[in-house]
């Protein structure tokens, strides 16, 4: 698989009045996004996600390092930018224009016009499911519709690469699902998507690979199978048997929650499943279910960010 977005030791420092006030927004970032994948670019607020995207798009300038897009070092050239569609977070689209007028404006910026532009507008409006509202003024659009018109403008030039900054933030579950389906459809068409998001569940559902950024440093990067390696077992036992639950807890089994007389308990990798089951048998606890469970992206995220922040607070060891 070819690499379409690649950064080499990419660094961005926002300089303050004094050296001590410098903000290292991104540090020595080596990122690779492969052709035809959805890459989930994750991190807490202020971790450097948007800064990375802005550097890739040429909106801000790297302090050090290099960027290659589609194998080209002149990533700011118009011919490269024609291959990139970008949806910024919370972008504004002029209220006084109709949906299709917004797209016509952006189409002209791509140098498109005439029948070709009309055809493309028809196609992208259909792709994002806004055909019914194409002639409506933007001021009458809901948040989800605005996000979809934003996605449509990013798709106008039929780009190979789509960079989406928080595409589902603030949307209701139905709109989120619709956007997610559109994105998955685009991936199936062979497009490469770089998605920056806080919505970990959304990312987990559609991403092929993820990268987690903390304080400007890429902590981990890889496929979900590579990263979500921690597996454990969840058992459900009758909650009325308090002695059995106490013994399980003492053995290292964690109670996650108790609902309707059922206690859901997680057996971590450090505790043997058979030991836990032996306790249940000895205490005559009613075992309702036993199921394997893989670590979620959210759990991985919390673990990675927690470790990174912990390391920062401890500071460098002498």
């Amino acid at each position, binding site marked *: 698989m070819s690499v379409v977005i690649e950064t080499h030791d990419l660094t961005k420092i926002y300089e303050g009045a004094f050296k001590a006030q410098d903000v290292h927004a991104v540090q020595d970032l080596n990122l690779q996004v492969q052709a035809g994948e959805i890459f989930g670019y994750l991190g807490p607020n202020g971790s450097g996600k948007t800064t990375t995207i*802005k550097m890739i*798009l*040429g*909106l*801000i*300038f790297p302090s050090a390092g290099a960027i290659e897009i589609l194998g080209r070092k002149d990533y700011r050239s*118009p*011919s490269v*930018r*024609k291959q*990139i569609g*970008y949806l*910024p*977070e*919370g*972008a*504004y*689209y*002029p209220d*006084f*224009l109709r949906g299709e007028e917004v797209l016509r*404006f*952006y189409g*002209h*910026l*791509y*140098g498109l016009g005439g029948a070709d532009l009309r055809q493309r507008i028809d196609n992208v409006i259909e792709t994002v499911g806004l055909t019914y509202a194409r002639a409506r003024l933007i001021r009458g659009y809901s948040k989800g519709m605005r996000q979809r018109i*934003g996605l449509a*403008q990013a798709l106008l*030039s039929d780009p190979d690469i789509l960079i989406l900054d928080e595409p589902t933030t603030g949307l209701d579950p139905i709109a989120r699902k619709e956007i997610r389906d559109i994105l998955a459809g685009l991936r199936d068409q062979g497009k490469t998507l770089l998605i920056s998001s806080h919505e970990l569940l959304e990312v987990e559902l559609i991403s092929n690979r993820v990268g987690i950024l903390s304080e400007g440093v890429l902590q981990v990067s890889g496929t979900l199978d590579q990263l979500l390696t921690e597996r454990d077992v969840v058992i459900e036992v009758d909650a009325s048997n308090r002695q059995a639950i106490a013994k399980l807890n003492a053995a290292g089994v964690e109670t996650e929650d108790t609902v309707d007389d059922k206690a859901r308990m997680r057996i971590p990798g450090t505790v043997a499943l058979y030991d836990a089951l032996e306790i249940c048998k000895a205490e005559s606890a009613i075992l309702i279910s036993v199921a394997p469970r893989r670590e979620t992206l959210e759990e991985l995220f919390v673990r990675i960010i927690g470790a990174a922040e912990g390391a920062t607070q401890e500071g460098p060891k002498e």
Partner: protein
Amino acid sequence: MTAILGFLRGSWTISVYTWREGMRKKTLIGFLILSILVIFGSSFMTAFLAQTTVGAGEEEINIETKLIKDICVTAISIFGVLIAIFISASVVPTEVENKVVYTVLSKPVSRFQYLLGKFVGAQLIIIINLALMGGLFFVALYAKERIMPTLLLWAVLLTYFEFLVVSAFTFAVSCTATSAVLPTIAGLFIYITGNLTEYLKDVYNRAGQTGQWFDEMIGQIAYGLYQILPNLQNFSMKNQILYLQPNDPPRDVQIPNLIAYGLVYAVAGYIIAYWVFRRKEL
């Protein structure tokens, strides 16, 4: 050739969008309505005045007409320059604030092309507003005197070039700013300073009378500023509008030279704007 056409097309698209959006700004509409009210109001107000003339022969002036002219010229100057400053100060910072600039500059659009589009769009707004105010004044004057006030057309043309200079430098300041407040203040400062440059010459002429070094230095600074700053008084034809016949040709003004003078300052302002914006972190 295709590349040039593509470049111009991109800029023109941004200009038209800027113009369409700008003409909807409430502040701008407010200024325009106020100016129209003042221009109409001047005719209405003078209807209650007694017909009075001063002077004799060619120098004879109708006080009522002079009052209309005075009010209208002042209204066009004040509201026109407020519109020019407001729009030039806001077209770029507003787009940075609402992130439209991200979606535009992530397309195959250069920063030069973008700025040119914004600047030309701002000029379209200024020209249309000036044409509206000037047109109303033209009609009011024609209705009053029954003579085609052709002199007014020259005055409006020069007024536009005065606004162009103010607009270009305000635009340059706006490219450094994140909101329209600072560039608006800078625009007003440029307009006021540009109208007071004759005083700088006066300071230079009077400097050195005390023989002290700082007195000389202030004189040199004043002279330097006089040479650098645009003299916006050059564009004013207010006295000719007030005291000449409406269809007289302009006197003592080299209109082509003044247009060239205005264009040089406007280009300088635009170059400063681009120089600031080309490496601006958005």
